[in-house]
């Protein structure tokens, strides 16, 4: 691939891998509506934090369905880790949450995407809503592994503590936590993320500083508007939106 400066801050080419048959090594249900899958991928192309994989399911009659999921694992992890929110009408997520067990084979493809990635060598701010924290956890783990935690600041927002994947890990990392429908364990009153909670995290932005906003379309819209309100240039904000609008 050619590297072109076709957009402000266009990314250098990122790693990409083809289809592999992965083996499920661990299945946990950290939350009532979430499943965490750890997969062994043969002949794996290591990802960058923020990249995603596609999971494809094939029914016995040949019908297939595929969906994209961000990784929460860091590149140094020998397994890849996905956190999948179980959507009641989701044909792939319900199967992954309810049916998949250790030892099962899954067709996966990745890593994919070279825009919403943090390589760990520039300062960054991650703002995730709900399962939007998943790629930020990959960034956090990469920062810990490479000793770059001082370059990464994190904000995690959710309706309730139960709606926040990796809550303990994010809290222990010093992330700003904002629960909109219940009080935080730190005494924070229920309410949406406020500009004054983010303002200290956008001060003193260095060269190459980038904000990574990930969540539902509505969350991504409000979080990016909040950043623009703090006079962060739009070109410094990368957004990953998912889920129904």
């Amino acid at each position, binding site marked *: *691939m050619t590297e072109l400066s076709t957009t402000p801050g266009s990314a250098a080419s990122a790693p990409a891998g083809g289809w592999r048959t992965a083996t499920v090594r661990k299945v946990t249900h950290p939350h009532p509506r979430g499943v965490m899958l750890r997969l062994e991928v043969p002949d794996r192309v290591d990802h960058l934090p923020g990249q995603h994989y596609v999971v494809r399911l*094939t029914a016995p009659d040949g019908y297939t369905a*595929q969906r994209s999921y961000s990784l929460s694992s860091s590149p140094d992890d020998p397994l890849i880790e996905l956190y999948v929110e179980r959507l009641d009408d989701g044909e792939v997520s319900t*199967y992954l949450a309810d*049916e998949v067990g250790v030892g099962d084979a899954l067709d996966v493809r990745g890593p994919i995407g070279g825009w919403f990635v943090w390589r760990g060598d520039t300062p960054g701010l991650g703002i995730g809503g709900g399962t939007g924290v998943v790629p930020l956890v990959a960034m956090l783990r990469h920062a810990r592994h490479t000793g770059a935690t001082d370059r990464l600041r994190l904000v995690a927002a959710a309706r309730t503590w139960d709606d926040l994947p990796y809550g303990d890990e994010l809290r222990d990392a010093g992330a700003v936590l904002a629960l909109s429908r219940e009080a935080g364990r730190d005494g924070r009153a229920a309410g949406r993320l406020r500009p004054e909670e983010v303002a200290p995290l956008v001060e003193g932005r260095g060269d190459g500083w980038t904000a990574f906003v990930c969540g539902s379309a509505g969350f991504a819209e409000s979080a990016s508007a909040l950043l623009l309100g703090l006079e962060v240039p739009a070109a410094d904000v990368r957004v990953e939106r998912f889920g129904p*609008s």
Partner: protein
Amino acid sequence: MTVSHGFGGRRRPPRSDLPPGQYDAGREWPVLTAEVTPHLDPQRWTMSVDGLVDTPTTWSWDEMHALPQSDYEGPIHCVTTWSKFGMTWSGVSVDVLLDAVGVQDEAAYVLATSTTGYTTNLPLEHLRGGQAWIAWTADGKPLTREHGGPVRLLVPHLYFWKSAKWVTRLTLLEHDQQGFWEVNGYHDLGDPWREQRYQGD
């Protein structure tokens, strides 16, 4: 291919107009954008066609609306695997703009650019012959900001990232020049019927 036992899928009635690997999103219209959604003032927006053309031209919002309008009725297909059927779009056919500027013989590719700096590349032949529009209404209503409003490129026979939101420029080129997602691993053409999602498909 690995068969997932116990996987049945959503089992909507099969439809022959659903490309491989896609599902029918029904009434939903998911939003996918990699950037901050801009606020565009139509009176400040312009549409330009330049590059390998005889007369590079820029149209204002009002000038675009004074051109002959046409509609598209049918589905759109997103690379993230949803398809949305039965849509109606209105705007100006890209053919009208290309006829106005005069396409030079060497032109073979187009780079579409948005006000945000987003770009996407397409072969010129896929923008001609009633296949592409500069569109400002969807299902009879002004296109909303999150879906690219007030105006976006519409190339419904290709995956929808080719239909650049907030489009402001089409540049005709002799050689293909990769755009935003294409640099990041997505396909240069993006034909849903050939399932050209990523480079190499």
